[in-house]
């Protein structure tokens, strides 16, 4: 009997958007700290954060059909303090409120108070990390049941969050954005770290058990190989890294041409596609432990 994954595209999209929202807020907080004059870039992140998380939450509620049809049941979500999902609900709720309040501050051209900014960053990290812990505590799937996943999801969240802010900035306020050299450098390193973490995750998982080995094999050379190599590794990580590396390490100057603009746009889109595929592949490819041997 072939195993059918418990979750699918909507949950992968939710995990992606929750991470992206947290990452976008953290990108804005980073901008406020490093480049207080870059107001437009910062605003873009502040607006993306609550919208991304809200869309993700709608997907989540839509996927939980019994709750969607009986919405009052969602009030029970805080019942079990030992469930990671309960903590996720707390993190998401607090983060969404902070993100919305911060967005209102920005829209009114007022500075987000420092304490709110810092609390938002903390909860942004919590939202991004919890999505990894949510899967990490599940003993059924060796690909999930490890401590590396929350770290990988946090790095991917920062990367996709920054990519969404940079993508918006490329269209709206390119000259302001191109001067944010440190943001670009950080954004360059994130996919590199992500690549290393994916290598470690697959190496370690591959040695755990037979189903764990089969899971890794399905990603590297089986039914998910095309999405893994072409989608996640090439489009999602390697190509954006090369595009980012060019101005930082080769030309070492601020690019203004339209070719570089469209290349950057392509790179950011690649990061977003990669971020989604990372979650989707981890959800779909995971095979359960052996029960009958």
């Amino acid at each position: 009997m072939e195993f059918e994954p418990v979750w699918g595209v909507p949950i992968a999209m939710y995990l992606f958007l929750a991470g992206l929202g947290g990452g976008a807020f953290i990108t804005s907080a980073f901008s406020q700290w490093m480049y207080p004059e870059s107001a437009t870039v910062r605003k873009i992140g502040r607006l993306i954060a609550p919208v991304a998380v809200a869309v993700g939450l709608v997907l989540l509620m839509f996927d939980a059909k019994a709750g969607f049809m009986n919405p009052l049941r969602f009030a029970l979500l805080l019942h079990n303090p030992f469930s990671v999902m309960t903590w996720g609900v707390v993190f998401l709720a607090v983060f969404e409120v902070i993100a919305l309040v911060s967005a209102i501050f920005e829209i009114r051209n007022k500075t987000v108070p420092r304490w709110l900014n810092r609390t938002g960053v903390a909860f942004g990290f919590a939202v991004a990390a919890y999505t990894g812990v949510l899967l990490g505590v599940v003993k059924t799937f060796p690909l999930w049941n490890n401590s590396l996943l929350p770290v990988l999801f946090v790095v991917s969240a920062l990367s996709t969050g920054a990519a969404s802010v940079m993508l918006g900035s490329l269209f709206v306020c390119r000259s302001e954005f191109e001067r944010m050299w440190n943001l670009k450098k950080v954004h360059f390193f994130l996919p590199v770290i992500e690549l290393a973490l994916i290598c470690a995750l697959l190496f370690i998982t591959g040695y755990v058990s037979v189903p764990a080995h089969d899971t890794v094999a399905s990603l590297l050379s089986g039914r998910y190989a095309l999405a893994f190599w072409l989608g996640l590794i090439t489009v999602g990580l390697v190509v954006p890294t090369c595009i980012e590396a060019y101005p930082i390490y080769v030309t070492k100057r601020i690019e203004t041409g339209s070719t570089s603009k469209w290349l950057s746009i392509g790179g950011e889109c690649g990061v977003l596609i990669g971020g989604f595929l990372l979650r989707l592949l981890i959800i779909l490819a995971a095979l359960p432990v052996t029960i009958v041997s």
Partner: protein
Amino acid sequence: MARYGMLIDTQKCIGCYTCVTACQRQNSLPATVQLIRFEERERGTYPNANYEMVPLQCMHCDDAPCQAVCPTGATYTNSDGVVAIDQGRCIGCKYCMAACPYQVRVCNEETGVVDKCRFCTVSANDGTVMCSCVEACLTGARMFGDLDDPESDISKAIVERGAKPIAGDLTEAKIFYVR
């Protein structure tokens, strides 16, 4: 208070799926919701090879992983050790389905609620007419009873026939297999 459990003898199981349909009838389930699933295994090497059908259903684990992750408290363990679902609390997040290593929880697509084996034989104690997997099994491969009572038929059978949980100490399962 009892601690109910089940014994399944795969040497007697012929894979006829009568238990599945009996369960569906007893619990008024739609055809798509099967609370018992089967894994098939070829064992040994020719000429000493055989074919084994292993019926799997909720193991009513003492340390139920599904209950640990359920955010709403819809999954709970009652005083008889039966892991149960309060359908009115379930939001259908499917976290329990992922957490159950035996993969024996199913989502009812009509209601969105997650379901699983209810140990419905327990209700027979109150004199309810039942049509459970135990009674329906054509070959008598299944037994049900109180694991805490050393004089119960199931307790004696587990000892005599060396029955063990299907996956060792993966969880503290209350279904024992003779293989």
